[in-house]
């Protein structure tokens, strides 16, 4: 009997406690910078697409919500012909971001993506691509990769020595 009264009193004291609820539309929740929300495709500092269409994100995705098709431009630079994320399937696990070798695909602190039609949950490349570099402002994949591309020959990348002609070393 005593414990009943005690627990009732304890519950009653909650009258004077502040409430835990965040009144969402009026009161915005504080989202951490690493919040895993809406997925975007970023660009490198030169304004080019970072994505090299390696399919690693699509392979890592546990719910198979990423679809893309690789293609190449005239200079041998790979990019996705289309890049499609079905957000009605996406579970925002962030595996795609972890898998991405070029920091192209990133998750952002935005979760307000409700739609009235399911079709609208399918985002195409133009919906995903942003104009900036996202979380990695200075990273430029082609500046550190040993790949010949327009404006950069082999051996011109950062911390890269010019290639050695192996035949020239012959005795």
């Amino acid at each position, binding site marked *: 009997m005593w414990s009943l009264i005690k627990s009732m009193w304890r519950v009653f004291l*909650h009258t004077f406690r502040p409430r835990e609820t965040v009144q969402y539309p009026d009161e915005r929740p504080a989202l951490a910078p690493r919040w895993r929300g809406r997925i975007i495709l970023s660009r490198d500092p030169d304004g080019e697409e970072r994505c090299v269409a390696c399919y690693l994100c699509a392979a890592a995705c546990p719910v198979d919500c990423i679809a893309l098709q690789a293609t190449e431009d005239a200079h041998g630079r790979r990019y996705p012909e289309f890049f499609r994320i079905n957000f009605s399937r996406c579970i925002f696990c962030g595996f795609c971001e972890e898998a991405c070798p070029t920091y192209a695909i990133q998750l952002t602190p935005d979760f307000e993506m409700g739609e009235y039609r399911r079709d609208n949950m399918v985002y195409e490349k133009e919906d995903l691509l942003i104009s900036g570099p996202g979380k990695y402002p200075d990273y430029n994949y082609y500046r550190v990769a040993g790949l010949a591309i327009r404006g950069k020959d082999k051996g011109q990348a950062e911390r890269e020595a010019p290639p050695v002609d192996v035949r020239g070393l012959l005795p």
Partner: protein
Amino acid sequence: MSGTVWALLNIVGVLGVALTVASGLIWLERRLLALWQDRYGPNRVGPFGLLQVLADMIKIFTKEDWVPPFADRGVFVLAPAIVVATVLMTFAVVPVAPGIGVVDLNVGLLFFLAMSSLGVYSVILAGWASNNKYALLGGLRASAQMVSYEVFMGLSLMGVVLLAGSFNLREIVQAQRHLWFCVPQILGLVVFLTAGIAETHRLPFDLPEAESELVAGYHSEYSGMKFGMFFVGEYLGVTLISALIVTLFFGGWLGPVLPPVVWFGLKTLAFICFFILLRASLPRLRYDQLMAYGWKAMLPLALANLVVTGAVVLARAG
């Protein structure tokens, strides 16, 4: 002529207020439970979310009102009406204030006990007519609960009757002019409170409903406004028991300064909040615990209270 008009006004007033309070309690309960769980509860529709009740009503009226094909149709439809009807009947004898109240019965208290016993039929019939094992289990529990608590519910009130010397609720209130019966009849109050919680099937005695074990107990198969009737019936019951506790133990409309109706309303509201606090803080008892509690603790307590009160009254009279 004016007497008839006054009586009609009383009937309509009591009916209207009782039903309004009962539906308002849906909001109050949700807000208070939320308060005690550090949440907000419904606060979107209208000021403080008060219009939530209206929204709920629109929703429940537009829901499909489905009678399962395997149910006993007649009884199934009748059951939810019984609970509301019996509780509303009892409101007739509640003395709100001098001159306000539907009827001044000499056996008001007995009428209340009779009607509350009838109310249990609603639960049992609903459980039976649903033709559903969970509903039937709920109904069974309701009947077992009834035989455990009805006995000491009646006995716990006899102390009050002895002290007041009347079954008339108005006279019982008048008899508390100098001392509220919650002081000499503290045992009776505790026992009646326990019985009242069981009577309204509220937590911690909501065994017939027991949503964690029996889906929704006796009203598992009910939908639409039939379910709404059970719901409103439960809140009407809470209001009624609170009003009766106030009438029998806390001096009814008696109180300084404020007008009698306000005193009655305030005291009743306090007990309604107490009922909600009970729900917020206590877990549901087990079936056998409820029975054992009723027969082994509450009944002897009520009997002892009756005997001692009787002895004191006799000694004083002698």
